[in-house]
């Protein structure tokens, strides 16, 4: 057994040396293709979201003739399976083995946090097109790690303000993981800012969908409103269970993402549900209308907030590249340009705080039929205070 490994190992090394030389040569050229590492889920619960983000990113590049700052774009794609235990290995593959110029990812916060650590340790540029974990632009922020989506706190805060318009007491229900905890914290701050009080926080382990015991408890507490944070298929089941338990009309349910992409599956159980988010269906913004047309033409499907986030990630990267005329070796200048970027996003005006988190408008929406229709703007240019970021 050892003898066979020895021979294989020698051949491997020879091959490696050859590849390494080629890779180093290609990487040094500021005129060769730009390698974009897309680490997103293409399987599992968040597969759909991963595909939407990737499609949004690629749309921007396609709109620019497949190039950014004059250089061709080459994608290196990897399925992260939304698995935090494989995140380190996967991120290292893209950064150390494939030597990408920028790391784009991901949906799941736990995976994204590990990716951000790898990016920090290797000084690789990274743009997060979804994961809302506070640390990424908080206690673990770094100059080279940007985000074009939201921090979990933002939609929670906006929903808190929304719910406080009509209610004085609330109970929160969420999965016990980073995203859930941060979202609930945002809701609490927004709700209390609006004059309300959160009586209790209920939670269950991720990704458990046995909501029955919690709904029972919620019914006993009898708050004026409820706020929920669960994602993926869990949000379908939750909204349906909520209605089945007879709570839909007695305790109004609020959420941020709870109806994103799942209104059809949720059906009647979700009608009239109010949410707050940085995007809505049918936003009357010229850039949005152009984006929707372009997306529809390219993919023959309607875009959603995840596609927008992916699209903006490409826009942000392009802004950095343009400032250095495509020379990715000028990292500091690229980062400065990205930090100061003021983008025209389909969601509205988009800029970034010092912690590299989006500053954006938050919209109140109500679920009507199969769409989350905007009713008004709850708060303009909301920034996450990111108190733990030392940048």
């Amino acid at each position: 057994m050892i003898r066979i490994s020895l021979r294989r190992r020698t051949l491997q090394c020879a091959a490696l040396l050859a590849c390494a030389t080629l890779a180093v040569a290609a990487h040094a050229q500021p005129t060769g293709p730009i390698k974009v590492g897309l680490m997103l889920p293409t399987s599992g619960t968040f597969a759909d979201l991963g595909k939407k983000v990737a499609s949004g990113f690629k749309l921007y590049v396609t709109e620019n003739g497949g190039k950014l700052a004059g250089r061709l774009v080459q994608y290196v794609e990897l399925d992260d399976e939304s698995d935090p235990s494989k995140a380190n290995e996967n991120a290292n593959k893209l950064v150390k083995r494939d030597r990408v110029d920028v790391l784009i990812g991901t949906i799941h916060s736990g995976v994204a946090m590990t990716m951000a650590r790898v990016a920090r340790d290797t000084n690789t540029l990274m743009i997060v097109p979804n994961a809302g974990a506070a640390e990424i632009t908080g206690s673990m922020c770094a100059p080279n790690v940007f985000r074009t989506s939201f921090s979990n706190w933002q939609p929670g805060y906006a929903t808190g303000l929304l719910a406080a318009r009509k209610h004085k007491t609330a109970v929160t229900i969420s999965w016990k993981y980073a995203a859930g905890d941060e979202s609930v914290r945002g809701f609490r701050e927004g709700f209390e800012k609006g004059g309300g009080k959160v009586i209790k926080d209920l939670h269950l382990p991720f990704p458990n969908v046995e909501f029955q015991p919690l709904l029972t408890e919620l019914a006993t507490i009898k708050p004026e409103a409820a706020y929920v944070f669960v994602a993926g298929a869990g949000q379908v089941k939750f909204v349906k269970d909520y209605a089945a338990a007879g709570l839909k009309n007695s305790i109004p349910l609020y959420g941020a993402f709870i109806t994103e992409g799942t209104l059809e599956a949720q059906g009647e159980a979700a009608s009239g549900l109010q949410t707050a988010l940085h995007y809505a269906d049918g936003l009357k913004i010229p850039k949005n209308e152009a984006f929707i047309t372009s997306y529809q033409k390219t993919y023959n499907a309607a875009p959603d907030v995840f596609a927008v986030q992916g699209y903006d990630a490409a826009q942000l990267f392009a802004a950095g590249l343009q400032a250095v005329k495509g020379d990715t070796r000028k990292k500091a200048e690229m980062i400065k340009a990205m930090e100061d970027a003021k983008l025209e996003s389909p969601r509205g005006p988009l800029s970034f705080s010092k912690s590299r988190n989006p500053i954006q408008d938050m919209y109140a929406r109500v679920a009507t039929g199969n769409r989350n229709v905007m009713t008004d703007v709850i708060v303009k240019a909301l920034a996450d205070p990111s108190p733990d970021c030392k940048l």
Partner: protein
Amino acid sequence: MDLPLILIQALNAVQYGLLLFLVASGLTLIFGVMGVINLAHGSFYMMGAYLAFSLAPLTGNLLATIVVGLLLSVLIGALLEWALFAHLYRRNHLQQVLLTYGLILIFESLRSRFIGDDVHSVSVPAWLDFSIPLGDVMTYPAYRLFMSAVCLLVAAGLYLLIQRTRLGSQIRAGAANREMVQVLGINIDWVYRLVFALGVALAAFAGMINAPVTAVAPGMGMSMLIVSFVVVIVGGIGSVWGALVASQLIAFADTFGKVFVPDYAGMAIYIVMAIVLLWRPEGLFKS
């Protein structure tokens, strides 16, 4: 803690316990009679759930789905026994563990490749999709009561089969002494095949009726397997009666654990297991 809340949680626990019993009884029967530990047992539960998911739109009604699903499960069970498990009877524990673990990997990969990794839901059949009011704000889903009733029926049927029929006595005899039973002219191979298929059918049936209540998702087989292991350990390997008692005990520990100590809920059943083992290292009941 108010009474209606406790009552509802108790109902949930009984229902979950009966479901666990269906799965664990299959596991303990297969071990008790044939001496084979089957790690892939959870995969049969998963198979039932995915069968329910795939067949429901085709047949349009619950009864038909279950009948077709059960038939398929029995066939698959018999086939697997003939092709693979029959070879395991004379092998040592390590080989049984490894082979059945290999089977889990194969089943999970096949499911991933042919059905995908998405999380699905199965609708509750329309005629059971209502809630019974309990108190002024709370209701209890009728479907869950239906589940408990069905599981009880199956448990009773299992008891009758093993204690009161000729097949049952053959099974019990085969468990005690395989060679003797063969000498008496009974085809022990078919008895074993039947027991195995029965075990598979029980697990698959549990998966089918539980599908509308839970998410049909990757990993559901694994979670169910480990819990049924705990039930079998606590109840005593080979004891169906032990499985019944233990499944209720574990279900109550799990359900009320989630209510009273949510941070430690995941460990609750293992703590119960550890306590039982301190007192009775071989489980509560002998087979």
